[in-house]
């Protein structure tokens, strides 16, 4: 077999790899399911923080709020809530919702301090 032929074989192999990657990453990527909450989009995370804040307003239990936020994994609840608050401020949440989230952040920061 001539060296010219090997060049064509290698080029065909590389073209195949490229096609395979394009198909697998772009055209028909893997369908994901059974994901963890840390993969949620930022607005869903912020809404979850808002839910926690709404519940906290009535329950006044920072430990319970922290447990709810713990589903997001490695960060502290105060940081998770603060990120949600930041997203809310940047994306036009209502003043009432922002105030609720601010209250939660403050409570969790204080709660973290006494843990």
């Amino acid at each position, binding site marked *: 077999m001539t060296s010219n032929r090997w060049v064509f074989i290698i080029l065909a192999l590389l073209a*195949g*790899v490229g096609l395979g990657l394009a198909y697998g990453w772009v055209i028909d*990527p893997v369908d*994901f399911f059974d994901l963890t909450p840390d993969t949620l989009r*930022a607005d869903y995370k912020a809404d979850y923080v808002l839910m926690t804040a709404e*519940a906290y307003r009535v329950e006044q239990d920072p430990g319970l709020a922290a447990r709810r936020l713990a*589903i997001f994994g490695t960060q502290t609840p105060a940081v998770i809530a603060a990120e949600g608050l930041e997203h809310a401020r940047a994306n036009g949440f209502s003043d009432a919702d922002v105030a609720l989230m601010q209250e939660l952040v403050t409570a969790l920061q204080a709660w973290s301090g006494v843990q």
Partner: protein
Amino acid sequence: MRRIPWEILLALLAGLGLGLVYSWVVSPPRIVDAEPVVLRADFKDQYRSAIAAAYNATGNLPRARARLSLLGDRDSIVALNAQAQRMLGSGEQFESADQVAALALALDDKPNSAPISTPTIEFTNNVEDLLTATSPPPPSDAPIVLTETPEIIEVEPTATVSVATPRPTRTLVPTLGAPFALTGQETLCDSNLPDGLLQVLVLNPNRRQLAGVEIVVTWDGGKEQFFTGLKPELGNGYADYIMAPDITYTIQLARGSDVALGIVAPGCQTSSGENFFGGIKLTFQQP
């Protein structure tokens, strides 16, 4: 005649296979912008619990409904009721399970109210969301790509926005220690019902039916437990038990209640003079 370049075709196919294995198995796209519908079942349960807790605090049913729709349940009411049962079965706090059941009940009571969005949730279903975690948002002059899921338009904050999170009277949550009172005991002579049917209905102070309440039935030489909510089509707080004829039962709730003594299947007669055993209906309610 030129022969087919088999070795080149084989190399192309081998490369294609390698590329697919790498992109589907070795290094699939990293997920950073997932939607709640793809969460694992236990995380969906926690999401529902948070929705229920928020609803319990705000009473904002449209918002709760919009949030539940994100989870992709075929029937949110069924999903909530089933979760409440699971929570009680696994020994979780009664208050949490009750919040979930209360949201199911509220949805059931007002099935036709239109859902509205939470303020910031935008629905997109774009593959690029999965692939470009840190890519900047598209420029404003980019062509609009219609996607499968509808976009929910964000409501601009106005003077009425504060209505979005009203502060209604808190839904009362029954306390664990409050004993239930036996508020009703009826004899039922209905030949359409099974013979000796004991029906138990458990209500909270607001006359809301309570699911997952353990009922203890004892008789001379025997004891059994059963739970409310296992027949949700008859009500979350409903449970039943078939009494044997000529046995006297004692009924009470495991959580603490008045004791219904001397419960026996009553003798009844149809209009044609045929004898059968009727049933008893007991109602327990938290004071």
